């Protein structure tokens, strides 16, 4: 590895508790997206909720086109369409007109307002805007309105996602007589992951609130009749009841120590919080299933135990194809921690683990989750694809594991890319990839093994048909 200065011009990383690898002044081919994108996706996981960006219409357009290219589903994101005038004098009239039109046009149950770089920079007082709007327009049945602050100059899309979830829980959750309901904050996972989580919880006989849940709203069937706001999503009543559940579970090891929805619920309503890693691979999934056993008082249902067993069996069958192979993985911090854990379990050596996120907790969380991770593995936090390319070129991996943005690197290194996470816009079915649980591990395993087998077959002079 080249020796690179840890600090670069214009970067102020003093407040981060781990060294940042990224040394350059500019970010070249970012490994992160902007904060309001995450917020918009989280809002679409709430039943009858329309995301609303307070700022320029361009943000709404760009974020829509990006989410759509991954999900291949419609997503409406309203905006207050700032003009130069609103940028100077404030966006109050645009905000009010915009909300009124959305209420009339969509009849939503909730409007999730996210503030963009523009409205954040001019310092819009959202509390006042909300108050002034609602004091004029509130009536019985008016949609709920929730604000989340998401300037793109702080954090990444994942931070926007978690912040939106937290804002919604803060705004709507109320206390009440304690029930056996389980709150689950899954983080930014695929639509199929959300469906799988619901199936697991149901099979354990647990009542639950999954927030957010875009398993249907961002991956729906073809409709006989058009729906303005696609069906599905966490019902608002379920969000209100977050404050009376027996427990909250949050996936994401890097979130520990940062206030999130579950921490607020613990503080306010004394609901215990059980943080877990994203259940990717066998160990992290085991931890999840064990917790569910405790919460439900049931043993893991046979169907899931069978899936676990089949996965172990598949590992035995497939081990010879992948043992000792090297991988470079990148994506959101919690996603790469789960993937690294999974790869170590199946005998693949992660040589570079990289993320554009800068939580400051990646290295420590990763080492804690995956103690067997080789010391030589480079863990890169707050990096871009230029940094990843430099590290990967040196590490000579056999394949890449991550989103579509690594394609040019894969092409350069002439190695395959196994697509997971977000965004995936050069394959179909991104929303149907299962990453979580035993089933997810099985799918990831098959994908990795088959990709490596195909690569071997394609690049062989022999033309094997038995492998």
């Amino acid at each position, binding site marked *: 590895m080249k020796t690179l200065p840890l600090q670069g011009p214009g970067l102020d990383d003093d407040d981060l508790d781990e060294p940042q690898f990224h040394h350059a002044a500019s970010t070249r081919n*970012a490994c992160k997206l902007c904060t309001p994108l995450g917020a918009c996706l989280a809002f679409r996981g709430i039943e009858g909720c329309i995301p609303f960006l307070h700022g*320029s219409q*361009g943000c709404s*357009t760009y974020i829509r086109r990006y989410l*759509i290219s991954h999900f291949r589903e419609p997503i409406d994101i309203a905006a207050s369409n700032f003009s130069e005038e609103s940028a100077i004098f404030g966006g109050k009239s645009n905000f009010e007109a915009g909300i*009124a039109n959305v209420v009339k046009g969509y009849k939503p149950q909730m409007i999730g307002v996210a503030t963009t770089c523009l409205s954040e920079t001019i310092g819009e007082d959202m509390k006042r805007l909300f108050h002034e709007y609602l004091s004029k327009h509130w009536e019985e049945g008016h949609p709920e309105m929730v604000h989340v602050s998401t300037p*793109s100059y702080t954090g990444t899309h994942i931070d926007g996602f978690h912040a939106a979830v937290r804002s919604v829980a803060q705004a709507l959750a109320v206390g009440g007589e304690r029930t*056996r309901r389980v709150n689950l904050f899954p983080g930014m996972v695929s639509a199929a992951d959300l469906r799988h989580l619901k199936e697991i919880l149901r099979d354990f006989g647990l009542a639950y609130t999954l927030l957010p849940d875009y398993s249907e709203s961002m991956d729906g069937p073809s409709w006989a009749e058009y729906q303005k706001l696609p069906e599905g999503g966490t019902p608002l009543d379920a969000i209100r009841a977050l404050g009376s559940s027996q427990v909250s579970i949050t996936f994401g090891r890097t979130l520990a120590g940062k206030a999130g929805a579950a921490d607020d619920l613990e503080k306010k309503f004394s609901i215990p919080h059980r943080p877990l890693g994203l259940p990717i691979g066998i160990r992290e999934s085991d931890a999840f299933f064990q917790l569910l056993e*405790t919460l439900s008082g049931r043993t893991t249902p046979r169907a899931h135990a069978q899936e676990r067993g089949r996965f172990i069996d598949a590992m035995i069958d497939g081990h010879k194809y992948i043992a000792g192979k090297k991988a470079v993985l990148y994506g959101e911090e919690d996603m790469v921690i789960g993937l690294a854990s999974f790869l170590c379990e199946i005998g693949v050596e992660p040589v570079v683990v990289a993320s554009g996120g800068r939580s400051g907790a990646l290295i420590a969380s990763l080492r804690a989750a995956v103690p067997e991770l080789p010391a030589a593995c480079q863990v890169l936090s707050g990096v871009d694809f230029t940094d990843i390319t430099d590290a990967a070129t040196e590490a000579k991996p056999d394949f890449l594991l991550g989103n579509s943005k690594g394609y040019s690197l894969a092409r350069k290194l002439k190695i395959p890319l196994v697509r997971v996470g977000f965004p995936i816009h050069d394959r179909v079915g991104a929303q149907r990839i299962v990453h979580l649980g035993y089933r997810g591990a099985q799918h990831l395993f098959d994908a990795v093994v088959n990709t490596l087998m195909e690569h071997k077959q394609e690049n062989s002079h022999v033309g094997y048909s038995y492998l």
Partner: protein
Amino acid sequence: MSTPDTQSPRPEAAEVRAEMLKAYPAKTRKKREKQILLNDPVAPPEIAANSRTIPGILTQRGCTYAGCRGVVIGPIHDILHITHGPIGCGFYSWLSRRNLVKPRNPGDTNYLQYCMSTDMQEDQIIFGGEKKLRAAIQEAYDIFKPKAISIYSTCPVGLIGDDVHAVAREMKEKLGINIFAFSCEGYKGVSQSAGHHIANNGVFKHMVGLDDTPTPHLYSINVLGEYNIGGDAWEIDALLRKCGIHVVATLSGDVTYDEICRCHTANLNVVMCHRSINYMAEMMETKFGIPWIKVNFIGAESSAKSLRKIAQYFDSQALKDRVEEVIAQEMAAIREEQERVKARCKGKLAALFVGGSRAHHYQDLFSDIGMETVSAGYEFAHRDDYEGRAVLPTIKIDADSRNIEELTIEADPTRFQPRKSEEEKAKLAADGFSFKDYDGMMRQMGKGSLVIDDISHHELEKLIELYKPDIVCSGIKDKFVVEKMGVPCKQLHSYDYAGPYAAFTGAANFYKEIDRMVNTKLWKLVTPPWKKNPQLDARLGVAPKKERAVLEEPKSFKRNAAAPSAESGE
């Protein structure tokens, strides 16, 4: 829905319009009334185009940054582009338009693979981002040594007052390469159209005219407003070359910095997308004396017409003969495909809502295969793109347009050289030839067709419900909305990752694609057989129920709430 067994009678456009407007509050309705019009091709009614989008109405429009960096300058592949701002804007404009490029020499860097951003953090928002921008330019220079660097401002940059132009000048001086900046903050203007104008100004100021090396070709032209989506510019270039016409520069599809620097040496500008580049055409005529004409290489008939027009301009019998020869060859090559598709698509209906010229140009392709455009509109065009350039003097300049700089151009003291004398122009005019000729979309559309500017989701929904078009052409944001309604949707920004569709071979590609889309049997599968045969349900006594897990229904946690409360599990 799209393929009913019996075609229901076409609704009156006036009724559709009324139905669309009905849902709006009075103020919104008043505004939209001026943007949804019944067409009259002889005397196009005045359309309130290029006006602000109403907040909260879902628009297809993008922002000024998108129009400048994303559309007009973005495709120049041998200059280095730096987005100055937080990460989102740069990321979303990273290879997301399909303006294909081929570096000219092996080893040349294609900068479009890179998305460089100053990735501003809170500190820079508070203390200013110029320092970081300067460092980013220096770094880019050290690594790549590009010919030129272009900088794009995003929303917060304008607000915090970073002087990007001063930084560009300073670094240009320091590094000795061409460096320039664009104040294309997203909040300027009413759509990406403002960004096109800002980009035209910058390209003209900082690139055009830097290299006076004369072009050796007599029939030399620039193709303006062609962005090589899916390889369109390559098709056009190949066609022109076959005729003996040389393209100096295509602005800005697959173009290099050097080509732009010497594009003022061409003898004619032909304009594809009038909206995004008419400024450039005008400025080049004023400064260098290069006349411009409108062409359209989308559609076989239109391509033939455009070639003939160019040949007429150059006034050479040899060129005219060659053009006829090429047209005959090209037409013959696609005739069979055209006839085959026409037989399958004739009489079907299309609606197009896209761009600032595409909603017009693609009507020609549909008419090649006998399809009718019942409704069309642009996202970000101006009145002249609808009603024709004749209305230019009557367009009121509003506050939003006034914010965009209008360059004052004068004839270049040494390089202004009229390509045609007044006499020659008069002769061409007598033969029916016209310069600066764009009559707009409306004059070409049928009487009573519906013209809708900046269509909203609600209007699109009504349109589909009432007209039941066989295909809608739009962009990615609407594609899946339209398809959920049971109508195929062709993306005309990215071409659904296909193409090319320009010139003759491109036209054949498009015919095939439309045939595939409007004649697919897939939509028939949407309704399952048990819905078509309700007896089945009745007989078994099962009411169809929404497939929703019991546990997540609101009522379920009422049930749970009633259940004895449990301590948290441990």
